[in-house]
C-alpha cells in the first residue's frame, strides 16, 4: 500500500450517551491526533440500522480503518461485508462480532468475566446464599454476557441464591431508580442487586438509600466508572466489575497502526476485567477511568 500523508479513522460505538464509550473515543482520538491523523466518530444511538448507515457514510468518506463496537454482533454483518468490499480494515472492540473473519482483530474486555468477578464477590459475601435482584438490559449483547458470567461466578452457591426479580433497567440511572424502588417494596428482605452497568447500579443505590436499607442490601455494578468508584469510596456501592476503556482504547490504537503498517496482529486480545471494591478502590483513583 502506498504511504499516506495522514490517516483518517472511523469510530463507531453503541451510543455516545455512555461515559464508557466516550472515554474510549476520547482516548483513541487523543492518540491518533497526536500522530497527525483524524478520527471520524458517529453516534448510532443504539440503533443497528443507523450504525450500518453511518458506516456507509464513513466508507464514502474514504476512511482508512474503522474502530467498531457493534450494537448487534450479527446485524452488523452487512456493514462488515461492505467494509471488506471497500478494503477497509476493522478493529473490533468491546463487543465481538459473530464472524471473526470479517475483522482484523477483536479487542474485548471480557464482559462475561466482568460479571463473573461480581458473582464471585457476592458468593463470598453471602456464603449462605440469599435473595438477589437483577437489573439487566436484554437488548444489549454485552450485558447479556455479564448476566451469564454473573451466574457462573456464583459457582456452587448458585442454587442458594434466589432471583426474586429481574427487570430491564435499560442501563440507565433514571429508568433503574423507580424499578429498584418497586423491587425493594416487593422484597424488603432483599440481599443484593446485580446491575449490568454502573449507571443502573447507581440508580439502584439511590433506591436502596432512599429506603434506608443501605446496611442490608449490597449493590453491584459493572464498568468501574469514576462515579461508581467515588460511590464505592464513600461506602455506597459495594463493588463493580471493572473494565478498562482506557486499556481497550490503547490496545485498539496500537493494533490499528500495526494493521496499517502491514504488521501481523493477534486475532483476539482480551483486556482483563477485575473487581473494584472498597478494599482496592484507591489503587485506581476516582477521577477517571482505569
Amino acid at each position, binding site marked *: 500500500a502506498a504511504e499516506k500523508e495522514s490517516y483518517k479513522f472511523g469510530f463507531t460505538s453503541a451510543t*455516545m*450517551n*455512555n*461515559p464508557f464509550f*466516550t472515554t474510549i473515543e476520547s482516548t483513541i482520538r487523543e492518540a491518533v491526533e497526536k500522530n497527525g491523523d483524524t478520527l471520524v466518530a458517529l453516534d448510532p444511538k443504539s440503533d443497528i440500522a443507523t450504525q450500518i448507515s453511518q458506516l456507509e457514510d464513513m466508507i464514502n468518506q474514504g476512511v482508512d480503518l474503522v474502530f467498531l463496537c457493534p450494537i448487534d454482533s450479527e446485524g452488523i454483518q452487512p456493514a462488515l461485508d461492505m467494509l471488506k468490499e471497500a478494503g477497509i480494515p476493522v478493529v473490533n472492540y468491546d463487543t465481538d462480532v459473530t464472524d471473526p473473519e470479517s475483522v482484523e482483530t477483536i479487542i474485548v474486555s471480557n464482559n462475561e468475566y466482568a460479571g463473573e468477578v461480581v458473582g464471585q464477590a457476592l458468593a463470598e459475601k453471602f456464603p449462605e446464599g440469599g435473595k438477589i435482584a437483577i437489573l439487566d438490559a*436484554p437488548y444489549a449483547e454485552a450485558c447479556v454476557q455479564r448476566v451469564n458470567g454473573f451466574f457462573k461466578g456464583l459457582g456452587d452457591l448458585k442454587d442458594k441464591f434466589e432471583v*426474586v*426479580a*429481574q*427487570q*430491564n433497567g435499560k442501563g*440507565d*440511572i*433514571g429508568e433503574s*431508580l*423507580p*424499578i429498584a*424502588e*418497586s*423491587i*425493594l*417494596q*416487593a*422484597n*424488603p428482605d432483599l440481599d443484593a442487586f446485580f446491575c449490568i452497568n454502573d*449507571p443502573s447500579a*447507581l*440508580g439502584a443505590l*439511590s*433506591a436502596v*438509600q*432512599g*429506603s434506608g436499607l443501605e446496611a442490608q442490601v449490597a449493590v453491584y455494578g459493572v464498568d468501574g466508572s469514576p*462515579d461508581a468508584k*467515588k460511590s464505592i469510596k*464513600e461506602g455506597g456501592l459495594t463493588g463493580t466489575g471493572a473494565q478498562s476503556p482506557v486499556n481497550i482504547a490503547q490496545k485498539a490504537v496500537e493494533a490499528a497502526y500495526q494493521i496499517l503498517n502491514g504488521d501481523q496482529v493477534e486475532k483476539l486480545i482480551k483486556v482483563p476485567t477485575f473487581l473494584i471494591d472498597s478494599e482496592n478502590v484507591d489503587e485506581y483513583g476516582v477521577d477517571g477511568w482505569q
Partner: protein
Amino acid sequence: MKEKTIYQNHALLGFIRKNSVILTGLLLLCGFLSIVTDSFLTNGNIMSLLRQISTNALLTLGMMMCIIIGGIDLGLGAYIALSGTVTAVMITNYGVNIPVSILLGLLSGALCGLISGVFIAYVKVPAFIATMAMMNVARGAASLATNANPVRVTIPAFTNLGIGRIGSIPLPVFYVVFWIIVMALFLNKTRMGRYIYAVGGNQNAARYSGISIKTVQITVHIFSGFLAAFAGIVLAARMYSGQPAVAQGYEMDAVAASVLGGISLTGGSGDVFSAMIGVLIIGVLNNGLNLLNVNTFWQLIAKGVVILFAVSFDMIRNRN
C-alpha cells in the same frame, strides 16, 4: 350524559361523575394489586410510589396546559436532562452556590419553553415540530455541557431536596401538591387560565375577543418548560447527579397521563385533578408490574393494552 362545565356547585361530586370510568379503573387496579401482592398497600410502597410519580406529575401539569391550548411539548423530557445537568455543572464544575445553580437550571428549562413558544406564537411553527426541534437542541446542549458524562453532586444540601422527607413523606410529594394547587388556581381563577381554555377552544374566536394568542402560547410554554426544569432538578438531587441521557420519552408518559385524565388532544378542555388521576394510573401500573415482577416485554404490552382500554372506556362512556 356529558356535563362539561368549568366551575361547578358540587365540585367533588361532579369531579367523581366526570371521572367515574377512570376512577373505577384506578380503584380496580389498586384493589387487584393489594390482593395479589403483600407489599402494594404498605406505607413504604405508597410513599415510594408517590415519589416515583412526582416527575411525571410535574411534567403532566405542564403538558396538560400545552395540550389545552391545542399543542404539545415534546421537549419536556429533554428539559429535565438539561436543567439537571446545568444545575449539577454549576455546582460541581463551577462551584456556584446551590440556590443560584438551581435558579440557572430552572431558567434553562424556561428558556427552552420561551424559544419554542416564540416559534409557535410568532412563526406559527406547529407545536409538535417546534418542541421536537427544541428536544434535540436541549438534549444536545445537555450532552455538550457534560461531554455526555453524568456530573456528580453529593452535597447533602442539594441531594436532600430529592431524597429528604418530612415525617415519612418524601419531599417531592410536597412539591407536587404545591404545584397542583398553583396550577389549579392558575387555570381556574385567573384571567390567563381562562384565556388558555379560550385559545385552545377556538383560536380565532379568542383573537376576536381581544386575547393575545401569542402571550398565551408563550406563557404556557415557559411555564411548562419551567415545571420540567423543576422536575429535572428534583430528579438530579435524587440521583446525586445531573444526567444528560435521563428522561428520554418521559413526555410520552405525560401525554398518556393527560389523555387518561380525559384531556382532549384537540384542546380547549381538561382539568388538573383529572390529569393527576391519569398520572396515578400510569404510576400504579408501572409500580404494580414491577411488584409482580412481570417480564419486561409483557410489561410493554400490558402498558399498551391498559392505556388503550382505559381511554376506550372513557370515550365510550362520554358518548353515552
